[in-house]
């Protein structure tokens, strides 16, 4: 089966910064995939390229088998996206924004109403249903953005730091929701700094550093590649790998990542 997301040798530079340097990445269907890395590693750039907010300088990105450079619009129908800094139309109410999100995706009216009511209940936004978005707290805005990304029941949900600003109860609801969706065969792709959450929630993770994928796989794979002990946590593995990568020239790090991806591919076959 083709991966839901496949990035091959993706390069991107802007504002004088080389954000991605030949990034290779594969996200399989029906998994929660985590993208982790230090600040400025290129996580947000990666997500923005996939959802069409940024254009790559070179490389290939395929979503659901479709090359997004060749067909840059249609593939978005199966995507739901929530950015890190959520900007929402402050002048609309919660309900109006969810209707807007559904309408522009051409979701039938009955479905919009049904899903809107479901997510308003799920995220406990009942009292804020008719409130203007400008009056919402950061956590509530985040919940509204997630609800809007789910209004068309997307096959692939891409979230940049989804738990920031959300209360513990809300985080719990969100994790449950992610697990339920994965059981239904859908895919969740998240970028996060919360390594303990990533360790518990994600089936696989990729560690991105200086715009390159330095290691990816499940925790066992990462322990193996980092030569960490059996009891090592994702945080320990992450720190070890990024520290080692920091000491190596960038080309060497990329080569190591490529070798590892090849190794994973052979193992799966």
């Amino acid at each position, binding site marked *: 089966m083709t991966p839901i997301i496949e990035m091959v040798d993706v390069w991107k530079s802007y504002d004088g910064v080389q954000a991605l340097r030949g990034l290779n990445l594969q996200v399989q269907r029906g998994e929660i995939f985590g993208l982790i890395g230090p600040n400025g590693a290129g996580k947000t750039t990666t997500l923005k390229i996939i959802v069409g*907010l940024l254009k790559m300088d070179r490389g290939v990105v395929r979503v659901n088998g479709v090359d997004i450079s060749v067909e840059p619009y249609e593939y*978005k129908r199966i995507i739901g996206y929530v950015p890190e800094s959520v900007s929402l139309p402050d002048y609309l109410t919660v309900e109006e924004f969810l209707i807007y999100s559904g309408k*522009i995706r051409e979701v039938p009216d009955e479905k919009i109403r049904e899903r809107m009511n479901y997510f308003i209940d799920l995220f406990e936004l009942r009292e804020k249903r008719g409130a203007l978005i400008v009056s919402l707290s950061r956590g509530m805005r985040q919940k509204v953005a997630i609800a809007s990304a789910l209004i068309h029941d997307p096959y692939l949900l891409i979230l940049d730091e989804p738990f920031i600003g959300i209360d513990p109860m809300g985080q719990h609801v969100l994790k449950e929701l992610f697990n339920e969706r994965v059981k239904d065969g859908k895919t969740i792709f998240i970028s996060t700094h919360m390594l303990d959450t990533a360790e518990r929630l994600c089936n696989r993770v990729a560690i991105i550093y200086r715009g390159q994928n330095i290691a990816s796989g499940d925790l066992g794979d990462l322990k193996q590649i980092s030569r960490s002990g059996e009891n090592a946590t994702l945080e320990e593995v992450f720190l070890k790998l990024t520290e080692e990568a920091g000491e190596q020239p960038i080309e060497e790090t990329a080569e190591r990542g490529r070798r590892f991806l090849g190794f994973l591919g052979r193992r799966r076959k």
Partner: protein
Amino acid sequence: MRLKIVLNLYKFKVKSFFGAFRASKANLALLLVYVFSLLPSAFGFSIMIVNAVNQGGVNVETYIETLAAILSLLTAFILFLTFRGYTVFEHEQNLIFTSPVKPMEFLVASILADLTSILVFIYPLFAIYALVVSWLNLPLSSAALILSALLIFIFFIFLLKASLSIIMSFHRNLSAKIAVSALILLLLFPSISLALNLPLKYVLLPYPSTFLAKILVGEIYGAGLQTLDLLGLSLYFLLLAAIFIILSKENFFPLTTRVPFVSPFDASMRMQALKMEKSIKTFSRMGMFLTLNLESKSLLAFLMKKEFIRMVREGSLFAVIFMYIVVSFVVIVSGAFSPQEALFLTFFLGVYSLIVPLMLIANWRVSDFENLWVPITSGANIRMIIRALLYDFILVSSGIPAAIILVVSAIYGINPLMALLLVASSSIVSCPVNLYVTIKFLTRKSRSLSSALAGWASMLLSALLLTPTYSLIALSQYLNLGETICSLFAAIILLYSALIMKILSAKIERNAVNIEM
């Protein structure tokens, strides 16, 4: 008081204020253009004063009265600003108020920084002073007296604002507000009495504004040294300085009011968004009668309704209506309203249709550009979104003046055809021009450029493209052409405008789908 801390605070505040200029060369260029553009006005005003003095035969008392009224109005405005209590920026609360800085150190640094910052805007005053003093060959004593009086009054104003703001921070009750309101009324009472034909005049009252007006006018007209007036002004200053010193020993930090940081020419999205957030909170109450629901028949109608709701709730629509009302009112009161005046008004409104799209699109850029991630990542029909936006801009920028023109034409029995045509053509051409230029300026490379530059470019391009419209309308009015020719001209103008819109719409749609965020 630790002078080193005052100096550091002063430097920090001045750097914050001028931050936008330091951020980009374009903003610095704008500042220089602004600064130098004031010089011709200062030069002209100085010539006017010198000519008036040389011609003689004027009533000095009238000048004193007028100047005192203006200065009182300024003082009243300053008093009005104190209603909110002492205002500070968020970063000042977080950074300065959590450090061992004393209120007096903060206040002194603030006053000095405000004085430095405001010099950029009031420097023509000193240019006028220098020109008038040299051209009139005023004696050194008079020159010194005028300068001293000006400086004392400026410090007086700053001390007044600081002291009264602190008092208002401590006493946030109705009686304090009534007291300040009474003070404002007292300052403006001579102006009000003038309108009511009462014998109360500024020259008879010991107001600080009267003292300054007497010194300035008296010295310029050579009425001898105004020592008593300077003494009066100095007494006010000393009294306020004493109050200021007492108040600056109080810890008013926890009682301050936080306001959004304002730096002139700061076109950053964050800054503009803060202002817009405030505007939405104010106007949304009036706009809640409209709701975006699932009832719309087509996607285009739905998107147009959404944009209209935005314009209502963020206040753009009210701003446009208010502007047209003000413009109409000014034209009406500036002359006896005759059919000729009415005709002039209708064409005047047509010209304003060039400015309104600029305003509407600038507001869209601030309030909705950052939200474009929603349609871009959803695979939505961006072309449809842009079309809805454009249609709404055209409807609002032409609908409101057209309604006024129709009413005025009906009352005065004038033919509204050409004026309506001017409004329609201006909107149909300048809306896509403004949107096109704005979207062009929103590419990653040029996003840091000031929005004022985008505005100027849009106005220039709109004016150029509207040249055929203006020419044909001017020709029809000048030659007093018949209805058949006018109708032919109208058809040509509308066709031409529609063509421009079609070409630009295609360009906008092409650019919009390539926006990077």
